[in-house]
């Protein structure tokens, strides 16, 4: 029943969606790789970035692509405040307490957003939201194409920073061995602060771009949190290349399942993939760890 045209559409949309998922997951995997902390509130910081993108457009008429340059510094600042205000104090606590802290933060932020912005959906109606570019027989929505491109650029930039700069070497050293890094004279606090700053800061790019393809409401972050966790775990925790590969696989599998069966069945696909990945390669899809 699936014609070639629809299959092509599923592949193109799936790859674009996968790149967008990677854009969400990359910050999560960085924070975990360096700090060994699972940030359950990641989706809520995405939600905040989406609201910031919405208000930049609604109040000042700033295009979401330009809003990135305002929202990213804002989210980086939030990352620093998150470290100094909460995470730093929880670092010495047992892992289960750290999870409770970020989970609690997630619920708190959702409910604060509900109180502040009410539950209604907000939209950024750009003219380009309904424009598309033709890739073979498939048509890709322009805002999604932009978000996918931004994702690839961001991941490449982060990879280069981690590979080529001293700062990147320090982060990788901490990721490899906390104690070893401290013995070499690396200040853990500064590296952790920067990891959260960048990890949350990446959402400053994701937020405005997603706000223009989707809608904004207090629970919108939760749509991505679970999928981002699947991607990060399947890709190997803390592994950039793995996260990108995992995200593209999830996006593609979802989309092809949606073409073959229905989008209802597609929604279960990421979790099925996770189980397969865990059984087949429990250490992650790419065993050689790039970020560590």
């Amino acid at each position, binding site marked *: 029943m699936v014609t070639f045209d629809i299959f092509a559409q599923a592949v193109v949309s*799936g790859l674009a969606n996968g790149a967008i998922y990677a854009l969400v997951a990359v910050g999560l995997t960085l924070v975990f790789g360096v700090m060994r902390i699972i940030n359950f509130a990641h989706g809520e910081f995405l939600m905040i970035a989406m609201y910031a993108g919405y208000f930049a457009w609604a109040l000042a008429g700033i295009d979401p692509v330009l809003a990135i340059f305002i929202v990213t510094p804002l989210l980086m600042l939030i990352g620093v405040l998150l470290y100094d205000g909460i995470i730093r104090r929880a670092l010495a606590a047992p892992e289960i307490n750290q999870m409770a802290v970020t989970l609690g933060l997630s619920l708190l932020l959702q409910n604060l957003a509900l109180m502040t912005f009410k539950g209604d*959906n907000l939209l950024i109606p750009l003219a380009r939201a309904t424009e598309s570019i033709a890739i073979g027989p498939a*048509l890709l929505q322009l805002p999604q194409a932009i978000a996918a491109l931004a994702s690839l650029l961001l991941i490449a930039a982060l990879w280069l920073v981690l590979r080529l700069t001293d700062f990147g070497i320090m982060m990788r050293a901490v990721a490899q061995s906390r104690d070893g890094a401290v013995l070499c004279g690396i200040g853990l606090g500064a590296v952790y602060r920067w990891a959260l700053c960048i990890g949350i800061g990446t959402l400053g790019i994701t937020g405005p771009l997603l706000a223009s393809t989707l*809608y904004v409401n207090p629970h919108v972050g939760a749509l991505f949190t679970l999928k981002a966790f699947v991607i990060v775990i399947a890709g190997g925790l803390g592994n950039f290349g793995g996260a990108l590969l995992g995200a593209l696989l999830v996006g593609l599998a979802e*989309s092809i399942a949606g*073409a073959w069966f*229905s989008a209802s069945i597609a929604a279960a696909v990421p979790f099925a993939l996770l189980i397969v990945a865990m059984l087949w390669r429990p250490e992650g899809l790419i065993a050689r760890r790039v970020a560590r």
Partner: protein
Amino acid sequence: MLSSMIRRGAAAALMACALSAGAALAQDTVKIGVLLPITGNNAADGGRMLKAHELAARQINEAGGIKSLGGAKVELVVADIQSKPEISRSEADRLITRGNVSLLMGAWASATTIPAMQISDRNGVPFIVTSAVTDSITEQGLKNVFRVAPKAKWFAENVAGFMADLNTGDAKIRKVGLAFEDGPYGQSVSKNYKETLLAKGVFVVAEESFKTGTPDLSTQAAKLKASGADAVLIVSYVDDEVVLLRAMAAQKFNPVIIGFGGGHVHQTLLQAGGIAEKTFGIVEWMPDVAKPASLAFVKAFAAAFNNEIPLSNQAQAFSSTWIAAMAIDAAASRDPAKVRDALARIKVTDGPAAVLPDDVIEFDERGQNTVGAVVAQVIDGKFVTVWPASVAQQKPVR
């Protein structure tokens, strides 16, 4: 000294007066029980409906109360069902055994209405179902249950009727695609759609279900386009509908769109701009329904509640309260059994109760009011009632 004694005496006299007046008033009122979720998940909806009940009661009392009972005032006895079926049942029981009510109304959703109406029926107290739409409510042969709201399956028949009316000239709708969220809401409505449309000779050429919150529906839009559907019927929440409409527009696919209820007739859809333009939505009632009673209700509601525009459930609550008062008046009695018989015979063609789209409000032998939905179209960024012709503001635009 003297003046203070006089003052005290006057105050005592006044109090005595007030007390006796209060006692007389309490004896005179006719009690109508109202079951609503004032707290819990559906508190916002319950609060909105209470406003409509109260507005109707105030109007009834200002117009002289129940005339056949010597101008007795209507008193609403409101019980909070906390959005929970078991509380709805116990509150209905309490109002019947201790509240001395002549009639009950409520109780928001089907899940909270069914237990309450069963208790009411067993105790021989008439129950007006205001807004619950589950088909079975008036299919169990309960003698004391009367429903103002339509049956869920009628929406499908209304949509089929609307499409038949659209089918003038060349642009005929022969093939439809269904796009629905995969929860109980989307599944039950789309199942009704499918059965009803097939029976009327309309082909259902595509069925695309999705989980609510799916961030991209491009592939689904491509499949709907490839199916060659002339119209796409969407049953979802408004956020998913925006995602789907954007994807269809990006796929250069412009069929007739018919959305469903509050998932379509929603402010969020209007924010979406051009893609919402000319889309249709089927809904129980619209504030611009062209009937004198309906327009008067909207005006009175805005005046009473800070320019608020009522929603369809509030029109149902308002109408139900007026119908209750009319039935008690016709029965000339507070006795639930007599009120029940009066309700079974009632026929409303005009007056304040006639806010709902159909010409007549009356209950069939199973207690069901025959009432249709209306179709609203987005025209110049506003929802406008375009069908049925009898209550439309203007003709549908294609």
